[in-house]
Structure formats: structure tokens, C-alpha cells
């Protein structure tokens, strides 16, 4: 049991490429920390640095009060679950789990106790004599977890462990991982690119982009108060609607309120307005201080419990999205409950209350509270 602290950790490759640009992070004992971000954001590199599989070029990594920068992976008291499981193909399930313990010179009876216990927890009992090849994807995943559990390490590290499973199994295993972690109360760091996995698993969520931390916090807090437009469009599906505002629009929308002074919101020339699809309502009346969008329905997605309406804002030219995951300017997604939706081509009015609006600086790097 231990906490993990990263202090200004950075990684620069000999080629000069900065993979990690100074990250500070504190994971308390027993917490489940999820690193999430798009491909290439450095989340896996960061995890591998904690594991000791990548060298650190700046800063400190502290596991349980010990700086481990120059310590071998085997000595760091961590266990890692890999994306492709990395099971030893020629060893039985039992030996896969026992291998690490044998290498540490643990007495046989204790190895046996630990492996049997892990097999019981993960329901692998009948499969102990089989080879990995004879197991299904979910079972292999559990063996990989078992290999981590038997070690009773200070920290579990997960590198996208569920991405090779099919959708249904992924959800089941997600729940299992969470239950297991609660039960063992082992500090865990988990890397994923799936924001839903990140939201459901995390005690603390770290959103990364381009080798930097965009926001750290508890998942709901991040959902409710994204710090940048990147976080706003990455967390939540479908992504938050982002619309550039001119300064006069900002004034008319946000300056009437007594809570915000002119200087704060309208100080910059322009800003970006964000509204989550689920915060809209289709209505004809205008809520006080809220926003009203007149849309032409362009496409409809029915998923049963809810329906997504893709609408084009009237009087706004259509364009191409600047970043993947963001909406093209002028297009707005509205989520409504149920399956009753307007017809394509119909004109609707979507309104959102004032307290559901998010405002960001024009470069998207700063959240503006109003």
C-alpha cells in the first residue's frame, strides 16, 4: 500500500522530441487514478515511466516515499497489466502467475497459496493447467490480472487492458476491475483512451494532451467544469458543442448579469461558448439568461433511450472541425430523451439555461466563470 507522487516529471527523447512536458500528480494510497487522452498524448509513456520501462529525463517519481527514478522495474514493487496481456505462451496459467514469485525466491507453499487465492477471486480455478492459447480473451485478461494480484504489489499499473476485448466483455471487465481494486485497496494507475472507461473507473481523472496535463480532478467535477475546450470536447459523448462568440455577443449574453463584471467575461476580444448536448431542451420559450439556438434538423440518431439531433444553426456558415472530436462550426448536437424526434429538415428551437453554459477564452486554454 503506497501513494504515488510525480514531481515535474518529463521525458525528452534523444531526437529532441518532448513526450512528457513536466507533469505533477499525486495519487493517494488506495486511489484509482485514470490517465485519459487521445493517442500520442503521452499517457502510456507516463505509465511506463512509473513502471520503470522508460527512463525519466527530468523530475522525480516517488512510490511509497521512495524515489524510484533509477530503480529497476522488478525492484519498484509494482505490477503491470499489458494491453495484449503479455502472458508467457508456453507456460500454464498456474505458472504464468507463479513465475514472478518464483523469481523472487518465495517458498513453494506460499506461492501455491497465493496463486490458488488469486484463482479463486478471478474464477480461474478450473483453468490453472491450461495454456493461454486455450483461453478466451476475457479469461486471458483475468490471468493477466491474476499475475498482478499474486505479487501483492504497492501499485497496479494498467495499460489499456480492456481494448482487445469486445464491447460487452469490456463493460463486464470494467466493473470487475473496479470491484477488485476496491476489495484489495491497492493504489492503481490506469491508462485508457476511452472516456467512458475513464469516467466510470476513476477516483481521480487526469486528462492529458500533447504531453501535458489538461486537467486533474474527480470525474464528475471534470465533466461539470472542464478547464479547457480540449477537456470539454474529450470528456462526454457526444462531445460538448463549442461555438465561437464575438465580443458583442459575449456582452449581450453574459454582461447583463450582476454576478459577472464586464471585465471578466468580455475582457478578451472573443470567447468560446460550450453547451453539452444533454443540457438542451426543445422549447419555444426562452429561459432567463439562457441561450436560444434556431436549428434545421440535418440528421437524427435514435439509440432507444435517447435521441441525438444533429442540427445546423441558421445564419451560420458550415465549416470543418478544427480538432478531431470537436464539432464543425455551425453544427450542434442536441440530446433529447426518448425516441420521438422531429423530422429531417424541420426547424426547431433548442434552448439551454444559463447555469448550463460554459465559457472559455478564445484560445480555448482557459475556463471563464461568469
Amino acid at each position, binding site marked *: 500500500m503506497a501513494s504515488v507522487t510525480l514531481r515535474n516529471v518529463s521525458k525528452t527523447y534523444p531526437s529532441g522530441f518532448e513526450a512528457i512536458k513536466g507533469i505533477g500528480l499525486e495519487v493517494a494510497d488506495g486511489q484509482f487514478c485514470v490517465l485519459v487522452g487521445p493517442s500520442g498524448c503521452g499517457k502510456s509513456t507516463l505509465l511506463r515511466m512509473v*513502471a*520503470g*520501462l522508460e527512463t525519466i529525463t527530468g523530475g522525480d517519481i516517488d512510490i511509497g516515499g521512495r524515489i524510484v527514478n533509477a530503480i*529497476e*522495474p*522488478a525492484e519498484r514493487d*509494482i*505490477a*503491470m497489466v*499489458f*494491453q*495484449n496481456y*503479455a*502472458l*508467457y*505462451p*508456453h507456460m500454464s496459467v498456474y505458472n504464468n502467475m507463479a*513465475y*514472478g514469485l518464483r*523469481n*523472487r525466491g518465495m517458498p513453494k507453499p506460499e506461492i501455491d497459496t497465493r496463486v490458488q487465492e488469486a484463482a479463486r477471486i478471478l474464477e480461474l480455478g478450473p483453468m490453472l493447467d491450461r*495454456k*493461454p*492459447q486455450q483461453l478466451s480473451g476475457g479469461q486471458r485478461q483475468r490471468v493477466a490480472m491474476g*499475475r498482478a494480484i499474486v505479487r501483492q504489489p504497492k501499485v497496479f499499473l494498467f495499460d489499456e487492458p480492456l481494448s482487445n476485448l469486445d464491447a460487452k466483455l469490456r463493460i463486464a471487465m470494467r466493473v470487475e476491475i473496479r470491484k477488485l481494486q476496491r476489495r484489495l485497496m491497492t493504489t492503481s494507475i490506469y491508462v485508457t483512451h476511452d472516456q467512458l472507461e475513464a469516467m466510470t473507473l476513476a477516483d481521480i481523472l487526469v486528462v492529458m494532451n500533447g504531453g501535458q496535463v489538461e486537467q486533474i480532478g474527480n470525474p464528475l467535477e471534470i465533466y461539470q467544469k472542464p478547464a479547457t475546450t480540449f477537456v470539454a470536447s474529450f470528456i462526454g459523448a457526444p462531445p460538448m458543442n463549442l461555438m465561437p462568440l464575438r465580443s458583442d455577443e459575449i456582452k449581450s449574453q453574459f454582461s447583463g448579469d450582476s454576478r459577472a463584471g464586464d471585465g471578466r467575461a468580455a475582457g478578451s476580444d472573443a470567447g468560446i461558448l460550450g453547451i453539452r448536448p444533454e443540457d438542451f431542451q426543445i422549447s419555444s420559450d426562452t429561459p432567463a439568461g439562457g441561450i436560444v439556438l434556431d436549428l434545421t434538423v440535418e440528421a437524427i440518431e435514435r439509440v432507444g433511450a435517447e435521441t441525438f439531433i444533429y442540427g445546423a444553426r441558421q445564419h451560420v456558415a458550415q465549416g470543418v472541425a478544427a480538432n478531431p472530436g470537436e464539432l464543425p462550426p455551425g453544427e450542434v448536437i442536441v440530446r433529447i430523451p426518448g425516441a420521438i424526434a422531429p423530422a429531417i429538415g424541420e426547424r426547431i428551437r433548442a434552448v439551454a439555461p444559463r447555469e448550463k453554459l460554459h465559457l472559455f477564452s478564445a484560445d480555448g486554454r482557459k475556463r471563464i466563470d461568469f
Partner: protein
Amino acid sequence: MVEHRRFGNLLPHLVLLAGVAIVAFPVYLAIIASTHDNAVIANGQMPLIPGSHAIETYWNTIVSGTGRTTRAPVGGMMLNSLIMALGIAAGKIAISIISAYAIVFFSFPFRMTAFWTIFITLMLPVEVRIYPTYKITSDLHMLDSYAGLILPLIASATATLLFRQFFMTVPKELVEASKIDGAGPIRFFWDTLLPLSVTNIAALFVILFIYGWNQYLWPLLITTRDDMQTIVIGIKKIIDVHDALTEWQVAMATAVLAMLPPVAVVVLMQRLFVKGLIETEK
């Protein structure tokens, strides 16, 4: 429709049978010749059915040698050939798996230089470097010894390349998992890499054993004593006699005997090969 298909099967089978006959007939002839008296063969009318001297001929060939020549018994030659072939195969596999391990899994200065140096030796088989190799072997007093037969032939660029290609397909995560499981480089080699390489080793062993068994030029150069002769050289000597009639039945028996171990290796290892393919999962 059925007629057509039967014809379609018949033609390829005829072609294949003709091929088998062409390949197998000389072998059959050698076996038949080894069962007849030398006089029968020498008169130029080679029979196509087995004769009655099989046991006598093989006994003479393997155990007693022949009185009329100074020929040593082939049994000893077979042992020499076996030691040489096993030594070359085992040595080549051991050396090349270790060098491939170094090249693929470790980073050290001049790693690629080392790799290309090994690669270039592909162009330098023993026939090309025969004089310096002979000189060194002779200076080290290894003429007429098993070490002299085996050591100069052990370095193998081909096997190193094959192992390198295989090692590069081993997932990086397996190495990392071993690191986290506390296995050092030697443990990883013994516990993970070697078991995974079994099929490759088996396949290479077949090829290299036959390569070693069939060596002709090198043993011819460095062995002078009769008791160090290999069987391949033995055949040549039996045919090439002066002042006497070539003992064709003995020559044929020797040829048949020379053929058996490679055949046995192929047959036996093929089983292991298939077994390995079924059991080893990658």
C-alpha cells in the same frame, strides 16, 4: 462431370508418380546393387531384383572392412560423421541463438556493425577462406581431430539471421513482463525465449545436421588418418581404388548407409516439428 474430375485427378497423379520414380529409382538401384555379389555388377548386367548377399555385404562394410584393400570399416566412419554433424548442428545453433539474442534484445555500441559483420560472412563460406582456415587449424594442432572438423564450420550467418527474424516477432511486452516479474536477461533467455524457439531450433537442426553430414571438402583436407575419416570421404575412397576392381557392392552399401542418418533425422524431427507447431502458441 464425374468423368471430367477423375481425369483431372489422374493426370497430376501420373506426373507426380513419374517424378517419384525418377527420384527414387537411383536410390532403389543402389539398394539392389548392395545386395549382389560384385561379379554380378561388374559384368555390366545390373539386375533389378534383390540378390542374396545383403547380410554378408553389410557386415563386411560396417564391421570388418575388406581384406583386399586397406579400407577401414564404415562403422567408424559413420561415428565420425555423426559426431561431426551433431557438433556442427549443435554448435551453430548455440552460437547463432546467442548472437541473435545479443543483437535483438540489447543495445550496445556498434550493435549494427556487429550485425552487418555477421551478415557479410554469408559471402565467405569455408571454400573461399580455405587456406587461412587450414593454416589456423593446423597451427592450433587440430588436424585429425573432432575439434578441427567441427569448430571452423560452426559460425553461421544464416542461422543468426533466422533467429534474429524470429526474435523480432516476440512481443516487446513479453520482455517487459519478464522484467517486472524479476527475470534478468539470462532467466528471460532460458525461461521464455528458448522454449518459444523450440520449433525454430528443430527446423534448423534438420538443415544443419544434413549440412554437417554432407561436408566433403573440409574433412578431406584436414583428416589424413583412416580412423578420422567421415563416411562421405569413405565412399570416394572405396570407388577410387588402384590396382584392383572397385567393390561396387560395398560402395553402394556405404552410400545407402550414408543416406540413413539424414533420412532418420528428417523423419524424426518432422514429428517434433509438427508437435511443436501444435503446442507452442505465439
